């Protein structure tokens, strides 16, 4: 596919917007820091130590996390929508987030059952991250094992959904035997959070993210071929099983680590590809993939800036903000164009 239109202008606008949103995001927070000091502290040490500390150890990692989360979820949503030819698919259709929820539920809600020292150990942050990764990895492994046996792509979609209901059922059973305090802790994890990541954690997050991103990029041609449907794709020499495998692994690396580090963040993965399709009116993944990357990062930065309620001490759950802001935008786009492009 060629880019008959080069899309230079929209891409320039998106990149500039991303930079502005990034700077805006690190300028806003519960402590008000003048924007000139924010700039200065990025490139040199400033006199005010606590401002410097806040920007370097809290706001910058959080802004980077927002970029990774937004772009990663957007891309995995795009991959799933094309693979399953379903506009309702998102990063979590294969049961990745429900697997993570199960892992976290076992750690948080199960901690009470073990009690004592083990409970304190279980509740440390790393154990939540590991539990979430293990949970999503195990569910994914089961779905993948079946995807090798099942020829029909749609059947894989249903299998993913079934795994989702099994895990949420187990979570319900666990919740039933848990204390109110544990439940609250579990629910708070479900709200999602972009903060709290140290530079070390962010580095691990970034490495896995890069691997997922790389696999998405090498799938661009396969994704475009899949736009014709699987039978045509096969007649064009595409190795369907191999491409499907790479696409699923890419999605799980992206969505899996994001869920592990930032919680199950809803909506972004489903909505961003639709927003991009409305703006760019193309189905070519060579355009869609970078556009989804930029769009996802921008939307996530904006949502995060709002969620912190600048100058106040409160932070709203990011999961609620993404839907509150994003859903009306998608509805507006669809109503305005009156046509769903897919």
């Amino acid at each position, binding site marked *: *596919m*060629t880019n*008959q239109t080069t899309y230079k202008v929209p891409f320039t606008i998106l990149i500039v917007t991303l930079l502005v949103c990034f700077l805006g995001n690190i300028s806003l927070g519960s402590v008000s820091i003048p924007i000139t000091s924010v700039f200065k502290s990025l490139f040199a040490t400033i006199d005010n130590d606590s401002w410097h500390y806040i920007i370097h150890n809290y706001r910058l990692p959080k802004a980077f996390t927002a970029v990774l989360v937004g772009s990663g979820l957007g891309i995995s949503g795009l991959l799933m929508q094309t693979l399953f*030819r379903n506009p309702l698919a998102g990063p979590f259709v294969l049961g990745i987030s429900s697997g993570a929820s199960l892992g976290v539920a076992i750690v948080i809600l199960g901690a009470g059952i073990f009690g004592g020292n083990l409970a304190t150990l279980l509740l440390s942050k790393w154990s939540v991250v590991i539990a979430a990764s293990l949970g999503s990895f195990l569910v994914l492994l089961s779905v993948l094992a079946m995807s090798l046996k099942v020829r029909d792509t749609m059947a894989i979609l249903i299998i993913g959904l079934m795994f989702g209901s099994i895990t949420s059922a187990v979570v319900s059973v666990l919740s039933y035997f848990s204390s109110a305090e544990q439940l609250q802790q579990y629910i708070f994890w479900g709200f999602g959070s972009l903060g709290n990541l140290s530079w070390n954690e962010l580095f691990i997050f970034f490495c896995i993210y890069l691997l997922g991103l790389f696999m998405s*990029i*090498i799938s*661009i*041609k396969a994704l*475009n*071929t*899949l*736009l*014709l*449907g699987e*039978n*045509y794709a*096969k*007649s*064009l*020499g*595409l*190795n369907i099983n191999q491409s499907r495998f790479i696409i699923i692994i890419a999605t799980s690396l992206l969505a899996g680590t994001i869920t592990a580090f930032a919680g199950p963040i809803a909506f972004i993965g489903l909505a961003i590809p639709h927003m991009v*399709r409305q703006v760019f*009116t*193309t*189905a*070519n993944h*060579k355009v869609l993939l970078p556009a989804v990357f930029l769009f996802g990062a921008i939307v996530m930065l904006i949502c995060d800036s709002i969620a912190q309620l600048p100058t106040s001490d409160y932070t709203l759950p990011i999961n609620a903000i993404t839907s509150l802001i994003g859903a009306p935008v998608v509805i507006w786009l669809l109503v305005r164009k009156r046509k769903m*492009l*897919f």
Partner: protein
Amino acid sequence: MTKTQPHTILKTESLTIGYKQKKHQTVVADDVNIALQQGELVGLVGANGIGKSTLLRTLTKVQPPIDGSVFINDKLLENSSYLELSKSLSVVLTEQPASKNLTVFELVALGRQPYTNWVGNLSENDISIIEKALLQTNIQQLKDKKCFELSDGQLQKVMIARALAQDTHLIILDEPTTHLDMYHKAYILKLLKTLAKDTNKTILFSSHEIDLTIQLCDKMIVMTHSQVISDTPCNLISKGVFNELFPEDMITFDEKTGSFRVKK
């Protein structure tokens, strides 16, 4: 291979087609021996459920044969990879493309996928082949339209252009004239005739338009309950094969006009 003897593009040797299940197998047709030469337009006709699609699926390596062998360009089908096959065989299926949010140019350009690099960039050569395919199917003016804006007839031409852009010796079309009105049925089949002649490609299509197929094709493959027979339309008429196509209590074949009549 001498110049006087046309090159055989597709050949089957005592091919048995059907479905294999764990214990038993269902044979749809056996002893299928056909040979299609370069530049021939070939129509495949037969009643509903006789096995036209099974035959086409076997010829395009979507399902394996029960017995016998298929050769494309003298190469055994089961020995060629999907990528190799995609450079000698292109298809037009009955199914619609999964996404219609592609422009006509983009869709036709997907036909170049077997030749493009890892990200699918088009070379100058690719673009000129695509332009030629658009020209041959007479759809240059639709180039920038989205596929959801097209009529069924236009979309069919686009799918044929995509197959042309794939630059293969053999094009196989599964019922290319369904959903089309009488004019467009004739138009598409005539287009195939012209393409076979001009590009020297072998074009095989299945169809229920027996009258049109008799008039236009160089060769026909007729599937009946008892046999799969391939010959020129005239020879097939004189052999009386068309009378075996359908149960004779309803319609009969009129040899003089080359068309079917309903029994009143």
